């Protein structure tokens, strides 16, 4: 067992107490189900911006991305981050349509464009599975990191983090989540910039970092890792990540929570700028981490251990504490949002479909119970995560993008598009995308292309064949 670091542990405990206090305050501000689900649809542009940023940056972003740079160099910018940033900006251009629908969840939108209400529980179940897997992965990452840093055994740390984030999410719903996000987002961006500033000073400047990084391996500073990634592979990854921005339940819920279209547009515009700066800084920090560890003989066995090693073995404690708070913020802000999404998906997309006359109070209760149940089961799974969860998690981006991106968003713009063709397209994209991801592509074509391509083909052909039949989906906002 690692030695307990009282300084880091104390910081961690204070941090958890602060977010719990925000959760308790959120409880006093939550009077009905719309407050819990969508901040009463009163979220202003700046709170929405920081909430989006904080949710966007996860344990995968901070630990995984720095680890990826440690292992593969700056090519991460090309195949992953570029697609994410392009997706955020593209959603900005579609957000008025989405907000004007005045619907709460992604399954609501699917039901709206297809005309089939049964799409709500079906899509809701898919998104619920996706959200739960994401929760488990985040908790595993969070607990491993905090265990490494504080010395508290992993099995205890999982439950401590799990119970805290379940508690404040259940108490105040999106009100707690958004205000803790505001704190966490500010901390994250500030701390990463501070850490990068420290490393630039410590290693003799930005140019020096890049030169030393290149001297370790020239592929480190090459856009494709000197051929490690093919052009078609990079484009497929860009498309997959681009698509997830449009199809994540939490992004749609946040858009619904904004007070008007103006706030919705500003929050995506501003978040795009903040995130692109943040991720550029994070990738350079990954390069600096690699240089620092290598030049001091601190090479790590696994790439995900690179950033924790920098914190515990390289930077001074004062800087380390700030980075730890940033990492904890990255983890909790994403985890609470996904947990909140499981509550709203269960109550809004599944329960209310089968109980359309259920009261406001009963839906609030279902949301809270679902939040607790999914939170506890995810925490329990994170104590000893089965390998299948990690494998399933890899299908997430392919599944969401293949199934939903083309049919749902084309449905928003194409007046009179056949609802049956949209449904057929969703099912085809999902099946072919996941199946070819499992088999590792088809004839060398990446699974995302097959899923998205098949969904598009079925949509167009289906509309030509079924265009005269009811229901008519599509385009009811802004026309």
């Amino acid at each position: 067992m690692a030695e307990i670091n009282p300084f880091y542990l104390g910081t961690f405990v204070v941090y958890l107490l602060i977010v719990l206090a925000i959760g308790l305050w959120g409880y006093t501000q939550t009077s009905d189900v719309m407050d819990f689900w969508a901040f009463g649809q009163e979220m202003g542009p700046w709170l929405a911006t920081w909430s989006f940023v904080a949710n966007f940056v996860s344990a995968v972003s901070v630990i995984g991305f720095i680890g990826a740079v440690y292992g593969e160099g700056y090519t991460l910018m090309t195949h992953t981050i570029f697609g994410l940033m392009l997706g955020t900006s593209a959603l900005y251009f579609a957000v008025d349509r989405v907000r004007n629908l005045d619907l709460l969840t992604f399954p609501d939108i699917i039901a709206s464009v297809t005309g089939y209400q049964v799409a709500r529980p079906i899509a809701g179940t898919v998104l619920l599975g996706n959200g739960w897997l994401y929760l488990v992965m985040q908790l595993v990452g969070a607990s491993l990191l905090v265990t490494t840093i504080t010395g508290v055994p992993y099995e205890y740390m999982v439950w401590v983090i799990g119970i805290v984030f379940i508690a404040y999410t259940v108490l105040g719903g999106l009100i707690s989540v958004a205000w803790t996000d505001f704190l966490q987002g500010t901390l994250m961006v500030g701390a990463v910039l501070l850490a990068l500033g420290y490393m630039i000073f410590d290693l003799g400047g930005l140019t020096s970092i890049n030169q030393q990084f290149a001297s370790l391996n020239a592929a480190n500073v090459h856009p494709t890792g000197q051929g490690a990634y093919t052009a078609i592979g990079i484009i497929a990854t860009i498309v997959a990540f681009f698509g997830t921005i449009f199809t994540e339940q939490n992004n749609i819920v946040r858009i619904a929570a904004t007070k008007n279209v103006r706030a919705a547009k500003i929050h995506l515009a501003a978040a795009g700028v903040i995130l692109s700066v943040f991720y550029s800084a994070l990738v350079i920090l990954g390069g600096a981490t690699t240089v620092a560890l290598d030049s001091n003989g601190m090479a790590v066995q696994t790439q995900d251990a690179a950033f924790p090693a920098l914190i515990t073995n390289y930077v001074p404690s004062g800087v380390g504490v700030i980075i730890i708070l940033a990492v904890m913020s990255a983890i909790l802000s994403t985890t609470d949002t996904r947990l909140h999404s499981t509550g709203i998906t269960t109550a809004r997309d599944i329960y209310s479909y089968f109980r359309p006359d259920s009261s406001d109070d009963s839906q609030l209760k279902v949301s809270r119970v679902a939040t607790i149940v999914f939170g506890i089961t995810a925490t329990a799974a994170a104590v000893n995560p089965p390998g299948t969860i990690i494998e399933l998690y890899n299908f997430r981006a392919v599944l969401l993008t293949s199934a939903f991106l083309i049919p749902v968003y084309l449905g928003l713009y194409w007046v009179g598009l056949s609802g049956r063709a949209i449904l057929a397209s969703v099912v085809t994209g999902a099946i072919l995308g996941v199946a070819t991801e499992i088999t590792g592509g088809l004839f060398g074509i990446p699974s995302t292309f097959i899923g998205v391509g098949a969904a598009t083909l079925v949509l167009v052909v289906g509309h030509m064949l079924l265009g005269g039949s009811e229901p008519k989906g599509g385009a009811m906002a802004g026309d």
Partner: protein
Amino acid sequence: MTILGMPDAMFLVFVATLLAGSLGAMHYVVVHVLLGKPVNDLAADRAAEGGDSTKDRATDGGQIDGGN
């Protein structure tokens, strides 16, 4: 040829990513701030006309016209 210690192509990827993330902000500033074009806000129009909103429909099961 290098910029900030990295090859031109890598530097361009960083620039392209910053631009990709900033497209929305550039559009908002030019179109809605400098040119003063209003945002397409039907929800505000509906509210002004006293129409239904999601808030009013929170617990109606999300039913919409034309559904099954």
